[in-house]
């Protein structure tokens, strides 16, 4: 009999523990000094760096940052599980509609700029390409590096998964060269890797590979390709400078979205992100700060 009593007590303790932790979480969210921040994997390191610095200065605020992709962030914002969605692309009309039917207007903030770097293995002799050549590689029309002045090697195309804002941006601005009528898509044998690190790792190890990634993710172990918008144009390497002055052809804004005009702690946080102090962190991580 004693043993049963013990069992029931244990179950009871667990139940109360579960209940109390539930109410704790709810009250923390209510007082809104707990900010949930989720979305773009491109932005996740930057968002983490911001959150860490901000929490040092404002220890009463707790900020949690997770990745998952821009689409994932919007879905979570619409479902009401987060306060700020990070995105490396603008919100789609469909997502705005869903947000409105969920009862709020998404508000956009451009928090940094990012260049998309096209990368290859350092052993690959090819170091300059036109945007059209990159597009033809990814459409499956160019399949060997020798067609581009390189060695006789097959081209292995790497891309982020289709839930990534970078993927969508690359599709629209590189593969379709910004043409809305164009319906070209990635070649079916394009490897869709679940993370930026996966792309860097494969490009680092494989001299057949070509990939693309946000400038902030590119490491010394891979080689960036200088891109030209036109056949006889100037080939430009991505850097904070060439992105800021608009020379590098593929750069984009990075965004944060809130549920309606931000209030209270969320507003303070966004204001801080747009300040010079937070924008200095942007440069440290290899992204490009927004213009004043």
């Amino acid at each position: 009999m004693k043993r049963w009593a013990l069992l029931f007590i244990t179950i009871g303790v667990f139940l109360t523990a579960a209940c109390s932790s539930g109410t704790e979480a709810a009250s923390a969210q209510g007082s809104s000094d707990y900010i949930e921040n989720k979305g773009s994997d491109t932005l996740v390191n930057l968002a983490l760096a911001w959150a860490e610095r901000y929490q040092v200065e404002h220890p009463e605020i707790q900020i949690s940052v997770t990745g998952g992709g821009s689409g994932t962030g919007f879905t979570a914002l619409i479902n009401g599980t987060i306060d700020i969605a990070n995105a490396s692309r603008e919100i789609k009309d469909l997502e705005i509609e869903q947000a409105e039917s969920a009862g709020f207007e998404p508000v956009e903030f451009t928090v940094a700029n990012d260049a998309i770097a096209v990368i290859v293995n350092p052993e690959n002799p090819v170091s300059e390409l036109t945007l059209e050549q990159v597009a033809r590689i990814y459409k499956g029309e160019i399949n060997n590096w020798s067609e581009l002045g390189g060695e006789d090697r097959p081209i292995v195309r790497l891309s982020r998964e289709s839930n990534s804002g970078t993927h969508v941006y690359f599709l629209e601005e590189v593969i379709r060269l910004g043409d809305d009528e164009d319906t070209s898509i990635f070649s079916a044998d394009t490897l869709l890797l679940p993370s930026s690190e996966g792309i860097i790792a494969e490009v680092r190890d494989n001299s057949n590979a070509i990939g693309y990634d946000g400038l902030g993710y590119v490491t010394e172990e891979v080689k960036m390709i200088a891109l030209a918008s036109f056949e006889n144009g100037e080939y430009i390497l991505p850097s904070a400078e060439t992105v800021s002055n608009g020379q590098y052809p593929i750069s984009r804004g990075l965004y944060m979205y809130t549920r309606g005009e931000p209030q209270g702690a969320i507003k303070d946080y966004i204001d801080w992100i747009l300040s010079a102090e937070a924008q200095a962190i942007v440069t440290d991580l290899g992204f490009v700060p927004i213009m004043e």
Partner: protein
Amino acid sequence: MKRSERFIANSIKIAGSSSILFILLIFFFLVKEGLPALGEVSFKNLFSLRWYPIEELFGILPLISGSLVVTLTSILIALPLGVGTAIYIGEIAPKKIKEILKPTVEIMAGIPSVVLGFIGIQALSPFLRTFLNLPTGLTALSGAILLALIAIPSIVSIAEDALYAVPNSYRDASYALGATQWQTIWGVVMPSARSGLMTAVMLGIGRSLGETMAVMMVTGNAATSFAGLKSIIMPVRTMTATIASEMGEVASSSVHYHVLFFIGIILFIFSLIINISSSSLQGKTKQEKGQVVS
């Protein structure tokens, strides 16, 4: 005491039948969310060869063939290794080695698949690329090797149980007839344990088919069409990896969402077939054994 006993008995009864309830609930949920896909996507689109959902291209054939290629290749690797290990542990190994081997295999079962996937990216796929001179090491083969590592522990433990269930009198009789150890294992023990060994294989297939994380990390996830044997050394995209990587982004009740659940139904049917065939195999041998005894 009586009352508490009844309480316990009833709790156990509920616990026991709950799994049936869960299966039914899961099945109804899958059907409810997945079947609308058949109405929303044309048959031609659904059974085409191109999967690119952000442009409404929902061809699921490359995903099905991708899963099958990875799973079957992994079983071809895991079957000889798994059954071989089980025979060694159960029939041949001296007690001391057996005591080391068995827990080691069990530890292998406990390695999280994401860890295996990480090893796959960092070590296995670069090795396969240089060793087989492939364009990329992120292929069905890399996934199959990792899956074999995941399936082997379950195959070993079930196969070993099956061998253990063979009565010692069979072995003694075989030895008495002058058979060698190998003849006894091959000619007597394995045929008697056939159904258990088949169950082990079936469960291994089920384990491979459902595994997601490791596969997603090393197979390249390119939805390439089936190209015969060459598919083994090509990047493929499996059904599980597709669901896992795309479920997070889809708006609920969109066409893409329904198609992902439809893929879930197909996976469910596949594992149902595997489970039914393994249990029917088991049933068959029980009858056979009954006849032997009578």
